[in-house]
C-alpha cells in the first residue's frame, strides 16, 4: 500500500512540475505533509511563482489557484491515460492569456487523445478543431445546431 502510493505520488508530482512550468512562470510541486507516513498527513502544493517568495496557498488569487488545480488534474490524467477526456468550463477563472495557454496545451494533447470541452471563452473556442453549437428551442428543449469545423 505504501509502495503503491509513493509510486503514484512520485509520478504525479513529476507530471505536475512539467505542466505547472508550462502554464505559469516559476516552479511548483506537490508536497506531502508527512513523507515518512503519508497516510497520517495531507497533500498540498508548494508554489513559487517567478521572483516571488514561496507562497502560502491561501493568498494566491482565484485565477492562480485554478491554474494550480488544473495542473494537478492534468498530472493525474497523464498518470492514467484514457482514450478521451470531457471537461466542463475549466477556464472560468482565467484571464485571456491564461485561457490561451491552457487551450494551446489541450490542442497539443488532443493530437492523440480526444478532448471534449464545454467553454464560453473565446480564446478556447478559437483553438478547437470543431465547435458543437447548442441552443434552446422555443419549448426550452435542447437543440444541437450542428458541428462546425473550425478555421
Amino acid at each position, binding site marked *: 500500500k505504501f509502495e503503491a502510493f509513493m509510486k503514484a505520488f512520485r509520478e504525479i508530482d513529476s507530471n505536475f512540475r512539467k505542466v505547472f512550468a508550462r502554464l505559469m512562470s516559476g516552479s511548483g510541486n506537490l508536497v506531502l505533509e508527512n513523507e515518512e507516513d503519508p497516510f497520517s498527513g495531507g497533500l498540498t502544493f508548494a508554489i513559487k511563482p517567478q521572483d516571488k517568495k514561496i507562497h502560502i496557498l491561501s493568498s494566491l488569487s482565484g485565477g492562480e489557484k485554478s491554474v494550480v488545480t488544473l495542473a494537478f488534474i492534468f498530472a493525474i490524467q497523464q498518470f492514467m491515460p484514457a482514450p478521451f477526456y470531457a471537461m466542463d468550463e475549466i477556464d472560468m477563472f482565467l484571464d485571456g492569456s491564461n485561457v490561451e495557454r491552457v487551450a494551446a496545451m489541450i490542442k497539443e494533447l488532443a493530437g492523440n487523445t480526444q478532448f471534449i470541452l*464545454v467553454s464560453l471563452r473565446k480564446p478556447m473556442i478559437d483553438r478547437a478543431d470543431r465547435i458543437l453549437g447548442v441552443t434552446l428551442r422555443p419549448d426550452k428543449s435542447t437543440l444541437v445546431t450542428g458541428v462546425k469545423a473550425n478555421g
Partner: protein
Amino acid sequence: MHVTELEINNFKSFSGVTRIPFFEGFTVISGPNGSGKSNIIDSLLFVLSLSTSSGLRAEKLTDLINLNSGRNLSEVKATFSDGTTIKRRIKRAAHGYYSYYYLNERVSTQMEILEFLSRHGIKPEGYNVVMQGDITRIMEMSNLERRRIIDEIA
C-alpha cells in the same frame, strides 16, 4: 477507443432523440446559459455509470427523465471508434424505477460495464470527466481530502 456518437433520448433537457457525432482531436461545446451543454456531459457520465444521481444534479434518477415529455423512459447510447456500444435506460415504475444496461446491444450489468471501461483506461477516479464546479471543489478541499485522491488512484 474514442467516442464517435452519443444518442440522447428524453434525457434531461433533451426531448425526443438527438444524435450527436463526435470526432478525434479537440471539440468545444458552446452555447447560452441553460441551453444543455452540461447535460451532454451528464449524459456521458450517466451512460458510462461514472457518476451518482447527485453528481448529475438530480435528487433521484427519475429526475433525469425529461420533465416536459410526459414519457416514463430515458435512454442514452454511446458508440465508440472500435464499434463498441454502451446503452443505459431508466424507466419510471409505480414504485421507483428500473435501470437497464446494454453492452454491444446485449443485456449487461453496471459491474460488467465498469470493468470493460476500466480495461480501456476509463475510471471514475482518473478524472477523465471533469464536471462544472470540480475545479472549485478541489481548490477548497482540505489537504487530507486532496491526498485521498492519490489513495484512490494508487
